[in-house]
């Protein structure tokens, strides 16, 4: 294995582990807001290209496949994340909701339309929500994901009681939305709880 391969694997592992997946969403209907400055095409080195559309802007457009028929159309965004791997272009779609908790804006992400190239593996994989703080300007989006190692330390030191399960790749939060919101509100302003923001630039 050459150095470049090791570095690439390391980067992917870092990205994959840089989040705290949750069985339940961060939002309730009453928390949802919109800010259409987020609509557009955005570039970020490690995170590829993001294309964001407001779902209820063009409800009859072919842009929305049938897999989106179940998605809540009000206050909902559609995110397409385009990445490259080994010369292949990979696209996956997510439903995104914007919400406000304690005066802070967050995004909640959930995969909608995806395929894995190994059928038996796909049966073992369960979709989860992810969430980040978000700050939007005309030309950029700043995303602050919670640091999973910070949560692990809190749990290991018995400083927090949030429902969760550990798996090979980290922690899955199993707390219901209200319990999850309490955690996010409590630690959302802790500097160490949030990873260095990923900044996406408008293309």
């Amino acid at each position, binding site marked *: 294995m050459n150095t470049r391969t090791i570095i690439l694997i390391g980067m*992917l592992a870092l*990205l*994959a582990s*840089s*989040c705290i*997946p949750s*069985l*339940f969403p961060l939002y309730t209907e009453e928390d949802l807001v919109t800010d259409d400055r987020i609509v557009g095409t955005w570039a970020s080195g*490690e*995170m*590829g290209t993001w294309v964001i559309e407001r779902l209820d802007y063009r409800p009859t457009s072919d842009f929305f496949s049938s897999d989106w028929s*179940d998605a809540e159309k009000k206050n909902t965004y559609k995110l397409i*994340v385009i*990445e490259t*791997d*080994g010369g*292949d272009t*990979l696209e*996956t779609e*997510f439903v995104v909701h914007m919400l406000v908790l304690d005066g802070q804006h967050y995004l909640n*992400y*959930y*995969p*909608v339309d*995806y395929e*894995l*190239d*190994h*059928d*038996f*593996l*796909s*049966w*073992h*994989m*369960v*979709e*989860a*929500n*992810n969430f980040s703080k978000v700050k939007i300007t005309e030309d950029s989006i700043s995303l602050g994901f919670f640091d999973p190692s910070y949560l692990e330390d809190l749990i290991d030191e018995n400083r927090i009681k949030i429902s969760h*399960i550990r*798996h*090979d*790749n980290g922690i*899955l939060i*199993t707390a219901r939305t209200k319990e999850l919101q309490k955690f996010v509100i409590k630690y959302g302003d802790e500097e160490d709880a949030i990873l260095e923001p990923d900044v996406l630039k408008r293309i």
Partner: protein
Amino acid sequence: MKIRTILFILGLTGIVVSCIPSLYPLYRAKDLLIDNKLEGLYETGENEYWKIRRLDPDFEKLSGDWNQYNSGYTYKLSVREDDKLEEFALHLLELGDDLYLDFFPVNYDIRHGFLDMHLVPAHIFAKAELTEQALILHFFDMEWLEELIEANRIKISYVELKERYLLTAKTEELQKFITKFANDSTTFIEADTLMRQDLSAGIKDLSLMFNIN
């Protein structure tokens, strides 16, 4: 919303699986068994194979996420689908009078990084029969579970995902649930029979097919 029953077809021979994922394993350490008949190579479709072998920490050095499977009661299942290979920890256990297999992915690879952040691994399991020539798998039927839940006939812990249910019950609750319905003919989809291959009969070289130890 009625949850859609999803049938996934694995391979061209038509191994149809409609399985129920679980956050927790079906087994406790004391439930585990070893049966050498489980080991072998199984052809599951055109250019699709399962290879099962026992992990024996006394005779090999385990690496990566396999380190935690050092009890001597773990089998390594390598599933090749065309040119894609994935590995699963496989555990054989007995509940009541029946054998079961618990499957869990290890060292898996999801190429899309942001998608990888949104997928977590879960256990699936099947009732199993082992003969000298075959491994017969009875996967649990998602439609059966859906009907039980809608009829309010069970109280097992679960959450509703977009297209299926995820069991969130811990192992003890899970085992009670499974054994209660183990002999109900509606519990399982049609059995999948995997024939063990005769390695002296011209099967392609294993190291070429699996590119693994």
